[in-house]
Each structure stands twice: as C-alpha cells, then as structure tokens.
C-alpha cells in the first residue's frame, strides 16, 4: 500500500478512539429517546447531560447556555437567523471572509428585508475593529465575525470587536468552528454572546456541533417542532453523537495546549522545507496570528487542483484554494478578499495538520510536492507566467 498522509484536518478529522469507545454504548444499549420519562429515556438524557456539562465547563459557560445542533453550518444559521427573527428587522455586520454558512445565511436575511454590511479584510486576512465600529448603525442587531478562517487560519481580533459590540449592546456571534478546541477562547473577555463550534473538526463525530448562547440573549429557534434543547432547537437529539462530542471536548481540554506547540513547529517545518526547494511560493494569511496547524501556500501560476491531484496520487490529502465546480474555476473568495493576485490565488494549497501528523509525514510532503510543481510548470504556457 502507498503511504498515506492526511493534511486536511480543517476539513474533517478522524474520530478519536476514546470518543468512539464512549459513543458505542449509546447505539445499542442506551438507546432511549431523551425526552422519554422512563428509565430508557433517562439513561440517554444522563449521557447527554454529562456531555453538556463537559462542553460548558470547557467554555466556562453554564450547561443551559449550550445548544446542541447537527453541525457548524446549523449553529451559524441558528445564531444569525435566531438573532434576526427575534428582532424582525435590522442590520447585521459581518466580514467578506466568513464561511459560506455565515455568508449565505446573511444573504438569505437580505432577501427577507434585513440589511447586511460585509466588511473587507487586509492582505493578511484581518478584520479591522475600527471598521466594525464605523459600520454600526442605530438599527444594527448583530455582529458576526469568525474566530479563525478555515483556509488561511488568520485569527481575528475578537476581543477588540467584542468590546465594541458590548459598548453598543449588540450581540456578537463568533464562528469558532476552526478554533474551538485548538486555541483558547474566553467568552467573557472576548465579549461573545453566541459561539458556534463543531465536533468533527476536533476528533469528534460528524453531525454534531454546538451553539453557546449567553444567558439573556434574545433569540428564537429556526427549526420548529418539539420542546428540545430548551426550545432553541427542535428534534430528537443525536445522543450518541452528543456523548462523543462531550468526550472529544474533554480530550481536547487535556491535549490542546501541547498539541498547539507541536503542530506549529511542524507547520513551520513544512513551510521552511517547501520554500527552500520550490521557487515562486508564498505563505498566505497572518504569519503569527493564525491557527497552529494551518499552512496555506501558493505556487505561482500553477493551478492548485493539479497540485492536489498530484499529491493525492502520492497518498497525501490536502485541499485546493481554488475549486473547479460545475465547470468554472473560482479562486478562493477569501484570497480574493485579501487582495491576493490571481496568479497566486489560483495556486493556493491548504495544508492542515493534526494529531496524527509526524515530522516524517511533513518531509514526505515536501519531497513529493517539488517534482509535481516542477512538472506542472513545465507544461505551462509561457504567457501564463
């Protein structure tokens, strides 16, 4: 078998063995519906309550401030639309580099009579808190800025934005899907009213995520039905998934700090190795204020999907900044918003490291990428250079 190296942890992660072990009994043995009052239901509820406690403790929140959802996308939708519909109309502030879950929820609100300001970012992918302040209007009802961008890893100055939000008594929603369990989050110091976070980015299962809702935040549910999750999210809970999520958070609480240091070193090894061997490369995003395990590297005038394919054939999983979907290649909107030139943006490849990444994996990637880029550049029309 060919060697396999997974460097796409920002896309998804393998479920941690301890997490799988904790989930297993909740399929066949503890299977009740947590809304049921009998013993079968109570056992399921207890598992779920324990997970909620774990997540709350990790965030320094109280258990009834945690809403479990089906994914980061749902958490973002719930936060943004839940704030909006609780108020009926008004103005939102967000940035141009948010995840599609945020951007398209905002665009939806625009079709429903709300207004949205999309803030620019600088060439490192940073939102200027001053821009946030200037965008605030008397009818601003919410600010939603992500903690770290999944493509380039740049970490936003949330505390500064939170202070502004608090000053104007506007709830701040933070999409922390890429930072939760990877870098510290202080809800109070950062002035966060709502926080989206997800399981499958931190070695928990897919299909489960959470939304922190600060006590007293006025919001409504967007998925209508039963009285689950204190009426903030209807539908029978994904008990096994929630139990696994709780365990994943517990494991992260234990491992997070050490792993951040280790991954940052490996990430630097990767970048140093590539730039030593491949000409015309560039690191996208903030050089220091970024996710420890993320390196977004542009190969000028090479189409990133070709690099991804070349590495894929070597057993390496990375992701392309540009994506050719339904017959049209778009450079990443994040890189475009950062003002990265097209010749660079089209060649952006994201490497995101994780638990299993070892130093020799990094070396294997460095060795593998060099001839691929060379070959691709060999077939390149001169005019494109």
């Amino acid at each position, binding site marked *: 078998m060919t060697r396999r190296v997974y460097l796409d942890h920002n896309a998804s992660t393998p479920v941690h063995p301890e997490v799988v072990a904790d989930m297993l009994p909740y399929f066949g043995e503890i299977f009740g519906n947590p809304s049921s009052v009998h013993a079968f239901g109570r056992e399921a509820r207890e598992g779920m309550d324990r997970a909620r406690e774990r997540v709350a403790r990790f965030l320094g929140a109280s258990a009834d401030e945690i809403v479990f959802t089906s994914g980061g996308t749902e958490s973002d939708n719930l936060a943004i639309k839940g704030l909006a519909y609780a108020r009926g109309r008004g103005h939102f502030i967000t940035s141009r580099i948010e995840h599609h879950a945020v951007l398209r929820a905002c665009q939806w609100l625009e079709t429903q009579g709300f207004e949205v300001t999309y803030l620019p970012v600088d060439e490192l992918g940073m939102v200027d808190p001053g821009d946030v302040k200037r965008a605030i209007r008397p009818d601003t009802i919410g600010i939603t800025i992500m903690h770290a961008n999944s493509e380039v890893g740049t970490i936003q100055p949330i505390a500064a934005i939170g202070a502004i939000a608090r000053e104007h008594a506007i709830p701040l929603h933070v999409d922390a899907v890429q930072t939760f369990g990877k870098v510290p989050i202080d809800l109070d110091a950062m002035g966060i009213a709502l926080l989206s976070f997800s399981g499958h980015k931190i070695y928990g299962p897919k299909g489960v995520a959470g939304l922190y809702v600060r006590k007293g935040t006025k919001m409504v549910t967007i998925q209508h039905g039963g009285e689950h999750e204190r009426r903030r999210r209807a539908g029978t809970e994904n008990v096994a998934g929630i139990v696994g999520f709780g365990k994943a958070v517990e494991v992260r609480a234990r491992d997070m700090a050490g792993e951040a240091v280790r991954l940052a070193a490996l990430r630097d090894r990767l970048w140093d190795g590539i730039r030593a061997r491949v000409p015309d490369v560039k690191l996208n995003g903030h050089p220091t204020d970024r996710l420890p395990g993320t390196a977004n590297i542009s190969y000028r*005038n090479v*189409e990133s*999907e*070709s690099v991804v*394919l*070349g590495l894929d*054939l070597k057993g390496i999983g990375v992701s392309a900044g540009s994506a*050719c*979907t*339904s*017959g*049209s*290649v778009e450079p990443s909107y994040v890189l475009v918003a950062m003002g990265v030139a097209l010749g660079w943006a*089209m060649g952006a490849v994201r490497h995101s490291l994780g638990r299993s990444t070892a130093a020799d994996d990094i070396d294997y990637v460095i060795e593998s990428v060099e001839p691929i880029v060379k*070959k*691709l550049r*060999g*077939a*390149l*029309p*001169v005019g*494109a250079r």
Partner: protein
Amino acid sequence: MRYSPTLIDHFLNPRNAGLMRDPDGVGEEQDAGCGDLARFFLKSARGVVSDVRFQAYGCGPTIAAASAASELITGRALGDVTHLEATEVERAVDGLPEDRKHAADVVARALRAAARACLGGAPEGG
C-alpha cells in the same frame, strides 16, 4: 479514484509537454468557465502531423487530455485533425467525470485551431 488509470498516467507523465521552437501551426483555447488553457504546436509533413508539443494550465484532466491527444493525433492527417471531436479526446483518457468534460473540449478546440493554422499557413503539399 474518479479518474481512469490512463488519465492518471498522462497527468503524472505528460507526453510532448513544452514549447516548440519552429511550429507550422499554433492553436490555443481557453475554457470560458474554467479558465483552463491549452496550446498546441504542430509540425506537419505531407499533410500529416509529424510532431506535437503542448502547454496547458488547468486541473489534472486538462493536462492529461492534452497529453493523450498529442499522442492521438501524431501521424494523423491534418484535415482529420480539423474535425477532431472532444469525445475522441475523452476516449483517449478513458472517460472524464461530468464536471470535467470541459478538459476534452478545450483540448479538441485548441488542436483543431492548430491544424487549421497549419493548413492555412503551410505551402501546398507542405
């Protein structure tokens, strides 16, 4: 794998990639949606393709299709190449996924243009 072994082989080991110094005809096409680009350089002898070089920019299938097509048309009559169909290019890489059909298309169009340029520009019987 969503790509055929033939496609992968051409992607990993492109045949006839690079520039040609003194071609009889050059044809170039860019996919409007995708931005993928293929450029072919042809040399002909007695109305038949005697040598090919290509340059391509794009996703893996475009590079592979250009490579496969360059082999396909070598030794073929220029007149035939002006009628080259995308489906034939696609067959040469053993098929393409629906969302990558454009690769065969851009390559076929570039080759037809290159063949036309050869015929138009070349002296009779050249």
